[in-house]
């Protein structure tokens, strides 16, 4: 038996000379590791490190120390007569004994049979991002993150294994066991202990109806037994705005306008330019000079300018974060408290966000560890500019440079005059809205009790809450900016409360039979979720003062208005899971979940979501184990399962009529009002009801069926590790709000179980880590993933509603993002080409030539095709890390390859005809002309007679890129120095993000990641300090 042999070994060793040794075990950043096991090889004698990572031990002088800790690669260190040691443990990316949270239970990583990606929190926790999910960008194969630069981090989107549905593709987040679909940008990154991504159905199916888009499980930090520790950290970043499209300056705009008008055969005539031209030798007018008057307006308040609106609206943002984390772990429980403050002033002026997050996690063991009770709670407050920030970017490219920021008095606002479109001054928009900031308070957490009834049998109950309070007081100011003005101010108070409770009960039984050959765990449970939302607003106009202290509603004197709404849904679920392992070699897992949702028709409220998966650990087989030395671990996995989606309007199955007195802002949407002044006296308006949607009592769950096969491997003592996965994901009965024939009329909307989509793809992950003799520790991790997406079924009645020619060409077989349009075949060079070409309304020299795809001699609706699938060939990421003597460096690259995207900015940069009265791009300076025939930019014109804004390959560009996402250099003060001042660890670092981009030459925009006008992704430079004591 093991015990006997230990004794015998000891007695043998006791013949040798013993020496007293001492040492310290650090992590790869030089931070002392508590609780590391230090054992003499071949014996059971040993110790573990103290809080600071120190140990001392008496050992034979020829002994070898085995130093191990969960989550690190075990090291063997020969004593060889030395008495002091410093050992650096390397994080084990494939730590097989690591415990992974997989849904209402935990499993050893070695036992996983589904496609579960474990994010290396160590790698990402240094990232200074405002939203945890941004840190996943490029890190996990099969997970795509797109984001913009908004200071609150609210606009990050996560897609796991492609686009599985036609509606909301956001994954489900499960934080400390509590599911939520609302954004997680209020989470304090420093609180995070682990992140797991459940990618395939066999893993995610336990979450049933809401797991169709994958699940991201986040576990927050808890106090560690016997450890009292205070971590203080802070960083400061400077962010500079990302690149923007280049617009014409005042003089060039005049030149382009003149030439475009001349090309149209018109007399250039714009109120604020005088053109001096003469007749050229060929009879064509030649522009000599563009003269700009001193003032734009007759009243001489607006001095003509050359305003760079991007420059005027941007700034270098300062980002600060302060974090304190106090944890105290005792024998029978522990408490962790953290407080975090984050502030980002925004790269657009007055758009900053700031956030407070507090956390209290505690747990207690009672009744001889048979009862564990505890709670997790986060309270956060996020304040952010509540304004359509994308609009600012839009306006900056729209308003002509000739408009000054301010009028000559330096106070009033510059704005459009005749000849300039009704686009407001973006500096005014930012300035006049700076007081318009919303507060979002969120309470998220749970209380739980876990009783061990008999050994291995746990009964657990948890009651969780996720409630938010949104408050937003808006002051819409009076203003005059050119011909735009508003004489009445208005204050609107908005308040909304929303959120849910979730009650979970589980019974978990772990047992081991046949002398440990059979291990079995069984989970059964239920869950109920109840969501409610309620909102109201009230507003008045005519406030005598716009002072922030004055603008309470009572102070307004006219137009009292108010409104409100409410919404709720509920879920009731039952689930069970069985995990079985035979001799740690053959793994089998099965789950089943039955979910009921109030959103579906009464007859179809319940859906059943089963899954099975299996694993085979070849490396445990006798023909491999200890026979093939370089294989440390090898596991084959296969899984099949179903997940669901219920993400539709809460009352989607019912026919609904609603009253809607009038539309709040009917300028940019149809007025849908139901009130009418039937008395003709402007008061006591009667109102009726409008149909909002049609009923579908048969509405049921959307189902995603996914098959996954994969392998995990570790070679050379787990120095080289990785995994490969292939998946096929079929979504059927996809919930769609059917587009409908116009004659159906109002409220023709109807949710049905319509389309089917198929996603499939490969995912690869490969990592290498090692420590060299000189103490240099390094790791390289790369990942690459692909997915293909195609629509496989559409109901007959809507088959033409998703693109196509209305006859034989439909979206079937193409990606749901695929773009349908014309093929732009260069530009017509001369009149002969035009007359010789197919009939194309608007064709002329210098105009885009569209391909006559069906060869019928005319360009029409039937000459369109699928011009891009808009799916990249692959996504990839590469992380390089190294540390040496307290220094560490990390480099992270992320890229997208083979994506052909619609570059919307081209509407602005390449045409003077698609937006009149608005600024145009500098690319027009190189537009086609009879003497500049090499250009790909169409000839200048003010009139879009050739319909060049139509969807065509003209706008499709190679949006592949490779970005340096992160470069970080850190230094940990030597332990000896740090201990003298009674600290555990001191670390400094500097970091740069988004510092360079490699893009395709074909891409004409500034940044392939930004094909619209969203908040620019900034470049970030950060300096930070972490202290622990």
């Amino acid at each position, binding site marked *: 038996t093991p015990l006997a042999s230990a004794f015998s070994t000891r007695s043998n060793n006791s013949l040798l000379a013993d020496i007293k040794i001492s040492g310290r075990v650090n992590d790869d950043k030089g931070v002392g590791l508590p609780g590391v096991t230090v054992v003499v090889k071949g014996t059971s004698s040993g110790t573990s490190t103290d809080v600071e990572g120190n140990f001392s031990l008496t050992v034979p002088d020829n002994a070898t120390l085995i130093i191990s800790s969960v989550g690190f690669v075990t090291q063997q260190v020969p004593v060889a007569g030395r008495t002091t040691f410093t050992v650096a443990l390397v994080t084990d990316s494939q730590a097989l004994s690591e415990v992974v949270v997989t849904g209402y239970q935990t499993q050893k990583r070695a036992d996983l049979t589904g496609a579960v990606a474990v994010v290396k929190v160590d790698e990402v926790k240094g990232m200074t991002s405002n939203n945890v999910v941004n840190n996943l960008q490029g890190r996990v194969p099969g997970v795509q993150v797109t984001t913009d630069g908004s200071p609150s981090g609210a606009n990050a989107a996560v897609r796991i294994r492609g686009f599985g549905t036609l509606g909301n593709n956001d994954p489900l987040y499960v934080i400390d066991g509590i599911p939520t679909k609302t954004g997680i940008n209020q989470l304090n990154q420093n609180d995070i202990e682990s992140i797991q991504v459940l990618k395939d159905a066999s893993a995610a199916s336990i979450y049933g109806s809401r797991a169709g888009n994958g699940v991201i499980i986040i576990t927050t930090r808890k106090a560690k037994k016997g450890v009292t520790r205070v971590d203080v950290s802070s960083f400061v970043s400077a962010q500079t705005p990302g690149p923007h499209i280049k617009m014409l300056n005042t003089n060039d705009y005049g030149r382009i306008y003149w030439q475009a008008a001349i090309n149209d055969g*018109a007399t250039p005539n714009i109120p604020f330019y005088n053109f001096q031209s003469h007749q050229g030798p060929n009879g064509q007018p030649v522009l000599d000079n563009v003269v700009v008057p001193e003032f734009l307006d007759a009243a001489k308040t607006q001095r003509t300018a050359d305003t760079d609106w991007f420059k005027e609206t941007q700034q270098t943002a300062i980002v600060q974060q302060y974090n304190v984390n106090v944890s105290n772990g005792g024998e029978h429980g522990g408490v962790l408290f953290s407080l975090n403050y984050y502030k980002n002033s925004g790269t657009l002026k007055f758009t900053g966000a700031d956030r407070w997050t507090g956390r209290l996690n505690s747990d207690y063991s009672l009744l001889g560890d048979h009862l564990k009770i505890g709670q997790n709670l986060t309270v956060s407050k996020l304040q952010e500019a509540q304004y359509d920030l994308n609009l600012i970017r839009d306006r900056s490219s729209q308003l002509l440079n000739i408009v000054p920021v301010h009028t000559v008095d330096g106070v009033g606002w510059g704005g459009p005059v005749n000849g300039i479109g009704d686009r407001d001054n973006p500096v005014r928009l930012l300035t006049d809205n700076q007081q318009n900031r919303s507060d979002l308070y969120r309470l998220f957490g749970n209380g739980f009790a876990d009783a061990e009834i008999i050994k291995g049998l746990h009964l657990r109950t948890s009651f969780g809450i996720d409630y938010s309070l949104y408050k937003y007081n808006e002051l819409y100011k009076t203003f005059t900016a050119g*011909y735009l003005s508003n004489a009445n101010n208005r204050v609107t108070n908005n308040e909304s409360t929303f959120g849910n409770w979730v009650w979970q009960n589980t019974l978990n039984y772990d047992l081991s039979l046949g002398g440990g050959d059979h291990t079995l765990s069984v989970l059964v449970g239920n869950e109920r979720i109840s969501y409610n939302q309620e909102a109201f607003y009230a507003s008045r106009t005519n406030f005598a003062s716009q002072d922030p202290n004055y603008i309470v509603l009572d102070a307004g004197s006219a137009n009292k208005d108010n409104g409100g709404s409410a919404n709720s849904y509920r879920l009731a679920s039952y689930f069970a899971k069985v995990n079985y392992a035979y001799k740690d070699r053959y793994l089998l897992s099965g789950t089943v979940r039955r979910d009921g949702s109030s959103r579906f028709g009464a007859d179809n409220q319940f859906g059943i979501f089963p899954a099975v998966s299996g694993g085979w650990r070849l490396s445990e087989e006798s023909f491999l184990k200890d026979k093939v030395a370089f294989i440390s671990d090898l596991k084959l996995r296969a899984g099949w399962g179903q997940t669901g989606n219920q993400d539709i309007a809460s009352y989607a199955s019912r026919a*609904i*009529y609603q009253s809607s007195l009038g539309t709040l802002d009917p300028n940019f949407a149809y007025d849908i009002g139901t009130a009418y002044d*039937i008395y*003709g006296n*402007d008061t006591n308006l009667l109102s009726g009801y409008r149909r909002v949607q049609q009923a579908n009592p048969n509405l049921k769950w959307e189902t995603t069926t996914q098959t996954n096969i994969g392998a995990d491997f570790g070679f050379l003592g787990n120095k080289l590790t990785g995994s490969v996965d292939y998946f096929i994901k079929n979504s059927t009965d996809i919930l769609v709000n059917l587009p409908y024939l*116009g004659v159906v009329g109002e409220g023709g909307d109807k949710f049905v179980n319509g389309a089917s989509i198929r996603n499939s793809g490969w995912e690869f992950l490969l990592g290498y880590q090692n420590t060299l003799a000189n103490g240099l520790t390094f790791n390289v991790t790369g990942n690459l993933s692909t997915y293909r997406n195609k629509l496989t079924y559409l109901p007959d009645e809507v088959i033409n509603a998703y693109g196509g020619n209305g006859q034989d060409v439909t979206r079937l077989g193409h990606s749901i993002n695929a773009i349908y349009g014309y093929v732009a075949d260069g530009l017509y060079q001369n009149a002969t080409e035009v007359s010789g070409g197919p009939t194309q309304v608007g064709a002329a020299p210098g105009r885009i030539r569209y391909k006559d795809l069906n060869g019928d001699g005319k360009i029409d609706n039937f000459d369109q095709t699928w011009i891009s699938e808009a799916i990249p060939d692959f996504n990839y990421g590469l992380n390089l890390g190294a540390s040496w003597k307290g220094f560490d460096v990390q480099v992270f690259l992320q890229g997208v390859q083979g994506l052909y995207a619609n570059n919307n900015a081209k509407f602005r940069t390449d045409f003077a005809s698609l937006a009149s009265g608005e600024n145009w791009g500098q690319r027009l300076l190189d537009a086609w002309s009879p003497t500049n025939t090499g250009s790909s930019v169409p000839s200048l014109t003010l009139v*879009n007679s050739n319909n060049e804004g139509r969807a065509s390959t003209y706008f499709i560009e190679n949006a592949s890129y490779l970005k340096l996402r992160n470069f970080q250099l850190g230094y940990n003060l030597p332990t000896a120095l740090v201990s003298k001042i009674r600290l555990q660890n001191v670390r400094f670092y500097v970091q740069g993000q988004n510092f360079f981009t490699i893009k395709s030459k074909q891409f004409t925009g500034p940044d392939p990641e930004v094909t619209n006008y969203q908040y620019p992704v900034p470049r970030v430079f950060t300096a930070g300090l972490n202290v622990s004591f």
Partner: protein
Amino acid sequence: NDKSFLNVSPTGALDDSQLNTPDNIEKQVIAAYSQLGNDIYYVPYTSMWPYGNVRGGDAYKGGGGTADVDAFHFYETFTFNRVDISNTDEFWYRMYLSISRANDALRRLDAIDVAAMPNKAVRQGEMRFLRGHFYFLLKEMFKYVPYIDETIPTDQYPTISNVALTNDALWSKVADDFRFAVANLPATQSEIGRANKSAAQAYLAKTVLYQAYTQNATNAVTGIDATKMAEVNSLCDAVISSGKYALHSDFATNFLTSGDNGVESVFAIQFSRNDGTPKGRTDRGNELNYPMNPDYGCCSFHQPSQNLINAFKTDANGLPRFTDFNTSGDLVTAGDFLSTTVDPRVDHTVAVVGHPFKYNPTFVFDNSWVRVPGVYGYNLSMKESVLPTDPSFQKTPPFMSSSKNWAIIRYADVLLWKAEALIELNRSSEALPLMNQIRQRAQNSTGLLKSASGAPTSNYKIGLYPAAGFSQSYAREALRFERRMEFAMEGCRFFDLVRWGIAAPYMNTYFAKEKNLRQYLSTANFTAGRDEYMPIPINQINFSKGLYKQNNGW
């Protein structure tokens, strides 16, 4: 248990069956009325200005340049109009949305027992009146449209083609709704906003008038149905003899808030503000059509054409200059309006630089109030606008709006429809007093047309048609001219031209001269047999899976 836990009732919503009580049916009737004015500037179906005026040579699109709402530019120039312009598709959808509200109310009205709802037939009449109105708009825009009434189950809609009915049969369907309304509506309604019998008679007259001009497959007018013309005449007589309507003594009253629901208003959209709704129920279809000065701010759309302005010239007898109005110099400067005699209606209709805007002598229209005069000239439309000081004025930043009513039918229309019918029935002498009634009123409408000094703004001279020489052909020309002067910028010109079968030659003649003034018209050309109607939106053809057939020439 789970069933009861999962039974979550919608909030703030009713289901279909809850709306079948008499009280709620009354509300559904209101919802249908409210759709009359639920407009938006890029698909304006209340005033119909882009389709009726811009396509008819009375107005330029205006605004910030030819690319500003370029759909209307393509409507204006015809050459580049397309089957896939989204504004056309949205117009189509908005009409059927409106029809669906009327059908919703009708479905409930049909089912309810008259004992429970004694005014059932009246409300049915009102709903069929509204449905008739929306089908009329569809009909004049697209010619061939699917006809769907409240008796057809929703699942049958995809089986009904736009060519299931002939042009004539479709007109009869529209007329049937008005006939029902005539039969069931009371002479007066206690609520002013509701349609009454006279309104239904008037709209039926209009419908039958359109139907009377028969068209062939290529949109050419092939004949005039005398029986229908006689019916138009008698329907108009019924309205006239009701004694409820008259012309306002001053033409201006029709275009002032104070004239809302006045004696000339046969049927109008009731707009309102400060009415308890969030932003008022105001006139949004015209909200681009205001000057660019600081009192307003935007957007200078809907500018009268030079051709229209010139048409207001009068000869020595104060009669229209049928042949030379557009070849005798352009009316541009304020001086031009003093050196030439003009019909007073020009200063009610057209904003002229140097003239008071909207009857306010101290609020003088300035050339800076126009947005891109180099493209669209210096004039703006005034009938739809109100003064910034008017109680009905409502800013809807960045646009302008008002709660002034918009007339669907005013009494002048009834008089001229009758006159048109009489002329086509070769009873021109009976048409003469009707037309002179209109001209007499115009003659009397100079009271508000004064400059700050009190002098008349222009040199007004308008005379009555003499009985001598009032032959059918002369009368027809005079009638057509009179309609243009009286209803300029009110949304009907193009549809008049198509009804009379003269759209193609008229428009191409117009372009030939007008393009010398407005260069963007140089590519404009009206294709006979095609451009009389909008194309059926390609979206709708695709959604119908080819059941809908495209209009001729498209």
